């Protein structure tokens, strides 16, 4: 597929806007808190759209749509329903208000920091920090590779050049403005993603003549496309469509979005905007995938990642294909920067500043802390860029394993830490190590063809959390009170924070 000068110009203008906004936002960064969680003053609309933009990546626009092409409307409907219900409604209801409230009370900017204080263990901060830092890298590399491949396929720019351009753009606004830049540009990115997929969906519908011609074709020629399973075994549907919405509960880069919120009462607006955004996005992808199936008459593609770019090339005009290119850039960049920021937060804040500071007894001043944060963010971005230039063949399955491992490791400790007073330090260690271990072993044993590694991981994680917690001594009541009672005495809060120093 080749794009003309107009589409490329649109993409260049878009990237310049993103970089410009990031540079402007850099003036707001005065402290480490500003860098990592936007000073906890990000509005609900920016939070919701930023969250959605970080959750969906190029693999959603290209990969999920290809899956809808292959497996039909039942599969698409299931993924849409679960994504909206779990990723935009349930997760904010369950985690949003309490994570926001506790992150301010305890002055934490990351999931690792929260877990360290909740379970009174500095070593847990190190364990979680290392797990996050390590697992985020393949995840970020896969996202970067995806967008590099797409730009190469759509625009014809060489893969390596595309990677370099992406990483330079990400660097310019991420290193200077941190979370402030990410939250603001994510708002623009999220709007761009939504507009671009809606525009392409409208173009596809114009080409097909509506939804009925699509479904009539499917009913006549490919009836499996109109079944709930699309011909897939149950466990495969669970792995493909069912697992990702659940994985979101344990993703550190998404938890940071709750911490950056203005206050807990704004979660209602976040839910409304998030649900609306995700409905529009998922429906647009469904139309694109099923419409492409009709337009290409169910043709088999050697490379399924080309389905969407070819649909855009053949059935969209100049402006819409330019918008699509901007949407791809937006989806890829927003995910990459969220992952890189989370990984570098794990290294700079959790491991170096918090864990290392407590071990050495030295506190780092605010200005130096921001600079260290920027340097480490730059190093992580450089690692992602270098590995992305020549990524291993199995990077996609590695990134799936990485996301599943983090989901399996952290979901139980976070949810039970928030809502179960009986959760203990030993239970958390068992849950994190057991959950992550089970997911990794399942992947290494080549069993992901049976079901996603997240599933055995999360089962092991929850079971160990509950069983080991019940078998061990409860945590002190005055410590647990900090996580469950409003109006807690500041001495108790300080004691809880200091309990993570050991």
């Amino acid at each position, binding site marked *: 597929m080749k794009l003309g000068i107009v589409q490329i110009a649109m993409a260049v203008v878009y990237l310049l806007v993103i970089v410009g906004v990031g540079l402007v936002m850099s003036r707001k960064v005065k402290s480490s808190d500003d860098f990592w969680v936007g000073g906890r003053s990000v509005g609900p609309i920016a939070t919701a759209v930023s969250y959605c933009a970080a959750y969906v990546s190029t693999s959603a626009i290209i990969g999920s749509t290809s899956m809808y092409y292959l497996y039909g409307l039942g599969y698409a409907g299931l993924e849409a329903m679960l994504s909206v219900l779990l990723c935009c*409604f349930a997760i904010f209801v369950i985690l949003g208000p309490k994570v926001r409230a506790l992150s301010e009370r305890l002055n934490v900017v990351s999931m690792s920091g929260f877990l360290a204080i909740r379970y009174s263990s500095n070593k847990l901060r190190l364990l979680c920090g290392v797990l996050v830092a390590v697992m985020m890298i393949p995840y970020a590399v896969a996202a970067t590779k995806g967008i590099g491949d797409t730009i190469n396929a759509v625009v014809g720019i060489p893969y390596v050049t595309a990677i370099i351009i992406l990483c330079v753009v990400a660097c310019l606004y991420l290193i200077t403005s941190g979370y402030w830049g990410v939250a603001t540009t994510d708002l623009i990115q999220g709007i761009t993603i939504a507009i671009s997929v809606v525009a392409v969906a409208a173009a596809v519908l114009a080409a097909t003549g509506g939804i009925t011609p699509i479904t009539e074709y499917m009913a006549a020629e490919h009836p499996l496309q109109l*079944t709930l399973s699309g011909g897939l075994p149950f466990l495969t549907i669970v792995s493909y469509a069912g697992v990702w919405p659940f994985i979101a509960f344990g993703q550190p880069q998404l938890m940071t979005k709750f911490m950056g919120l203005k206050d807990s009462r704004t979660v*209602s607006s976040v839910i409304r905007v998030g649900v609306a955004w995700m409905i529009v996005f998922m429906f647009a992808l469904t139309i694109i995938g099923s419409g492409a199936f009709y337009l290409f008459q169910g043709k088999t593609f050697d490379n399924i990642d080309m389905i969407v770019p070819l649909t855009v090339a053949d059935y969209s005009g100049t402006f819409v294909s330019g918008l699509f290119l901007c949407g791809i850039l937006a989806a890829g960049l927003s995910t990459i920067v969220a992952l890189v920021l989370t990984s570098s937060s794990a290294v700079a804040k959790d491991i170096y500043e918090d864990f290392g500071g407590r071990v050495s007894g030295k506190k780092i001043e605010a200005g130096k802390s921001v600079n260290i944060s920027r340097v480490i963010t730059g190093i992580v971005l450089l690692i992602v860029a270098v590995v992305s230039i020549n990524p291993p063949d199995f990077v996609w399955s590695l990134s799936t394993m990485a996301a599943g491992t983090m989901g399996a490791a952290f979901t139980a400790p976070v949810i039970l830490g928030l809502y179960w007073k009986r959760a203990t330090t030993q239970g958390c260690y068992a849950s994190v190590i057991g959950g992550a271990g089970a997911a990794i072993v399942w992947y290494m044993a080549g069993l992901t063809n049976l079901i996603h590694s997240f599933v055995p991981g999360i089962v092991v994680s929850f079971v160990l959390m509950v069983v080991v917690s019940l078998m061990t001594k409860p945590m002190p009541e005055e410590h647990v009170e900090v996580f469950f009672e409003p109006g807690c005495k500041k001495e108790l809060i300080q004691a809880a924070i200091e309990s993570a120093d050991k």
Partner: protein
Amino acid sequence: MKGEKSMHILGMPISVASLFLITVIVIPVISETVLHSKWWKDKSEYYFAFNNADENEKKE
């Protein structure tokens, strides 16, 4: 059975169409019901009080 027609919406069988209907109608309705409930209002104020009450503690 002769003359029997299965239900379809926009050419989709009801089983498949229901997934989309749940997504676009049922989930938003559930969401608004929850967000307008006393339970949610109390929950939001409860967690807002975590930090408000801490601020009052600091002022004392």
